[in-house]
């Protein structure tokens, strides 16, 4: 593959850890709002209470992370100048703008006990927005030129939806009494399964752009996430099965599994974020798939045209990386040019 001194082509996202933290919080808030609404409708007040409060807390934290990450936080409100269907961030902002007050109202009703009907309406509204809130972030990442995000657009929403559910269920398991935790337990299993399946597909079906999900820091984070998720599922199942004997211990197991699921949710977001970042730093992930696409379309067109250079100009790899007249120069290039270093 040729490149310009091994330098990256697309830019690495300038987002700080605020953004994966927001992704986690947004998912947690969405899942919790759903859980709270379900609990409300099925009369599980403790689960409702934890869900509503978690939703508000998470959405508030998420908004804080978002604003903190802005280059010009004081201009946060510029997000509300426009409604842009082409911008997942714009759509997300408006979703968040609707979700936040709804979640706030529901939580306020919960805490004060005032206007329970309004609280229910708000809670249901939040729950109505929640699936969008949980999944738009996948589109947010995928709608970039970051190879490992963009190519993953079919999987990312499921990973995020599953992760959101598992995290919210985890929070439910942590907070709700065992008696009301049944749905959280089942949701934990369902969400975690969805997340695990999607994560597996990320690493296994994307070809070259799946590589960052398997290697480096992202791979480590995602493997840790999967381990914790598995543990969380096991804990959730176990915590449920033993509900009649040793209740204190079952409560502890539930709580631990809840914590594991929450941690797994966070690790998933940080892992996916890291994989995208890694895929920007090596031009391979940009060039190789595009080259393959061009060659495919050239082959489909039945000729050697397309964007491919005439054979005469096809340089060997080093020619594009840097100058070098002979083997000596090759050594130099191999030793000294930045492109050969491991991406930081």
């Amino acid at each position: 593959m040729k490149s310009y001194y091994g330098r990256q082509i697309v830019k690495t996202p300038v987002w700080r850890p605020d953004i994966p933290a927001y992704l986690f919080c947004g998912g947690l808030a969405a899942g919790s709002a759903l859980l709270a609404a379900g609990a409300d409708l099925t009369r599980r007040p403790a689960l409702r209470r934890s869900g509503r409060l978690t939703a508000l807390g998470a959405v508030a934290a998420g908004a804080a992370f978002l604003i903190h990450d802005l280059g010009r936080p004081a201009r946060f409100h510029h997000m509300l100048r426009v409604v842009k269907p082409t911008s997942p961030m714009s759509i997300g902002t408006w979703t968040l703008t609707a979700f936040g007050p709804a979640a706030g109202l529901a939580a306020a009703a919960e805490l004060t006990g005032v206007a329970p009907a309004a609280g229910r309406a708000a809670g249901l509204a939040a729950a109505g927005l929640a699936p969008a809130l949980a999944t738009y972030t996948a589109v947010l990442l995928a709608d970039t030129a970051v190879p490992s995000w963009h190519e993953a657009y079919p999987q990312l929403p499921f990973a995020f939806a599953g992760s959101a559910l598992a995290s919210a269920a985890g929070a439910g398991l942590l907070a709700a009494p065992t008696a009301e935790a049944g749905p959280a337990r089942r949701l934990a299993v369902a969400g975690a399964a969805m997340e695990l399946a999607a994560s597996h597909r990320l690493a296994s079906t994307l070809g070259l752009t799946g590589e960052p999900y398997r290697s480096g820091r992202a791979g480590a984070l995602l493997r840790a996430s999967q381990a914790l998720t598995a543990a969380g599922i096991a804990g959730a199942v176990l915590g449920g099965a033993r509900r009649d004997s040793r209740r204190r211990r079952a409560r502890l197991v539930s709580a631990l599994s809840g914590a594991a699921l929450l941690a797994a949710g966070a690790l998933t977001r940080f892992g996916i974020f890291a994989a995208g970042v890694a895929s920007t730093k090596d031009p391979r992930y940009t060039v190789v798939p595009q080259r393959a696409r061009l060659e495919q379309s050239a082959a489909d067109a039945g000729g050697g045209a397309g964007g491919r250079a005439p054979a005469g100009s096809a340089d060997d790899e080093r020619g594009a990386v840097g100058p070098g007249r002979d083997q000596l120069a090759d050594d130099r290039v191999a030793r000294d040019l930045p492109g050969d270093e491991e991406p930081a």
Partner: protein
Amino acid sequence: MAECHPVGFQWVMEAKRRGATVIHIDPRFTRTSALADTYVPIRAGTDIAFLGGVVNYILGNELDFREYVLAYTNAATIVDESYQDTEDLDGLFSGFDPEKGVYDPGSWQYAGHAPDSGDTDADRETARPLRHESHGPPIPAGTERDETLRHPRCVYQILKRHFARYTPEMVERVCGVPREKFLEVCQAWTRNSGRERTSALVYSVGWTQHTVGVQYIRTGAIIQLLLGNVGRPGGGVLALRGHASIQGSTDIPTLFNLLPGYLPMPHHAQHASFSDWVAAIRHPGQKGFWADARAYAVSLLKAYWGDAATAENDYCYGHLPRMTGDHGTYQTVLNMVDGKVKGYFLLGQNPAVGSAHGRAQRLGMANLDWLVVRDLYLVESATFWKDGPEVATGELVPEECRTEVFFLPAASHVEKEGSFTQTQRLLQWREKAVDPPGDCRSELWFVYHLGRIIRQKLAASTLPRDRAVLDLAWDYPVSGQHDEPSATAVLREINGFEVASGEPVSGYTALKDDGSTACGCWIYSGVFAGGVNQAARRRPGAEQSWVAAEWGWAWPMNRRLLYNRASADPSGRPWSPRKAYVWWDAGKGRWTGHDVPDFEADKDPSYRPPLGATGVAAIAGDDPFVMQSDGKGWLYVPTGLIDGPLPTHYEPAESPVANPLYRQQSNPARKTYPRPDNPLDPISAVFPYVFTVSRLTEHHTAGGMSRHLEYLSELQPEMFIEVSPELAAERGLSHLDWAHVVTARAVVEARVMVTDRLTPLRVAGRTIHQIWLPYHWGGAGLSVGDSANDLFGIVLDPNVLIQESKVGTCDLRPGRRPTGPELRRYVDGYLRRAGLRKG
């Protein structure tokens, strides 16, 4: 050219677009090479061998433009029978005095001419040939000719014999250029020259900064004359000059040996009296316009000393200082080192970085009573006493350095009005945009007010030596809050005026030798013709012909192409319709065309001077070179050069090889300064590599106008050295690591750039590695680094006293150089191993 004159290079690209072939010959593959059709790597310092090969190819194959050569050059002129060529004397011409290292050029004369009775040693000391930038040396008008070119002593035959040994094989041996590549250049050049086509030759300081620099250019001129490429559109030998008004600063010189318009500064022995001086300027019997030089000289003295200059006192000729020898900048700096100079003005110049042998420059400045530095930024020459390299080595201790330093901030080009003369002799006037800030002032302000203050202080003096100061015409109108003198008034004085009326003269032909006109620079006369500042003309290029005669003003007389009479054939018709430029309109009886004819406008091509005619009247109707004393382009130079009538390949003063052409190794007449602090190593194993230096597009000369600017510094942020992959392997250098270069003078360090753009050459049966360094860096500015000019010693071209700073020999080592006192010991170790220092 793309590197150093990118905007000028647009015209090369324009030509290329129209089908021109671009050939680039350079020791290193540059941005110019990248756009050229053919790139030829060459060993630095061997251009005469290459060009001599081209001359040999032309003559050997009779490819010269014969009609042009016969009519317009001195090819047919017979040379004196006592002349002996380098072919006869193994690299020397007749007349060499090995004791003094100079030639007696008497035997080089045209047949029948009395030998020049000059003192060649004094001529070399005073760089006399520099006078000939505007006009040829004086010789009598009449010459013996053989129009068949068969006479063994005619210039054509001498030339042929002289260059016969410059074969393609020899070119390959000397220059490291494969013969096929060389022949490709010869064929392209000759094919593209003649009646229908012309080729241009472009050079720069890569040619001038050699001990044989003038002869480099001479060789180019010989080729261009042989091919009929002089005085014709698309032809020429074009000097790309590197500073905004460096042409102007030679025309109106701040040079020790010249007065404005290439008039000589008087020499104490040669020009003791006014009449000696005037007689020496021109030959009484010569042809052409230079015969009127007395009018130019008298008018200059009138401009200098006004009413005080009268016929009775020889127009104050006695007020002029007299040369006794070499008073050039390098001699002066060595005198500073020796404590002979008290005070030094640096006016927008940074010799601590820009001049050869930077250490001598700095140590010289450290040994002055006082130094005045005027610049835009705090350049290295202003701060050497504080943070120069010699402070680091301990050779210079601020507390022990007595030099008193005045730094006066200068006005920038937009903060003053005035004219620059650019590379094609074009004067362009700049309007002032804003007042200079703070204490910043123009040089005009500084000099005018310094003169005013000095004249005030001397007002009561009765000392004879102060008369020259007090008599000076120094009353320029001032204006504005800072009393800025009027540059327009100065330009009017430069143009010249009638003393009685004060009216500007129309041109140099209006100047008189009786004191009735004053003129600051005769070649610029006409720039204020009609009382209008012609240099300020700005008729848009799109609204006039391609010659653009109404943009600025070119000397002489707004001619854009010198000697353009040669663009027409002897009968006055264009050589070809494609190449028509100026021609004779028989109907109107006048020369006409696209440019101002460089000829008397009504002189018929058939005009033949009467016997015994001199001056302008002696110029025949087919003598295009009107400033030459025989009206011809000189293939052979019978007088006026210090180091021979024909170019000859000599090795640089420092070279890794013995001269493959002659026993004579280097220019026998080169100007040397043999002293312990200026060691040179003619051929040495200790310094096995050739190094050369030049500029980068992103920086300017010594960096004073670029390394202080963020936007330029970031583009080339650090001093580096380019080496070939082969040399990197030989010396164990890694890309981007440090390495240091050692010469007999200094050691400098730089980051390594390994690049295929440098290539080892096969020379005289062995491999020669060349390295390249940019010379922009120094210790002051945003981007700092060691200075490449520190590496050079001082050895000069004998004709013009320009240093050889494009080639030298060095060693190259990985890693950083030593620091502190160890640094000098390190260099001394090399000197001992090279046998240049004992102990």
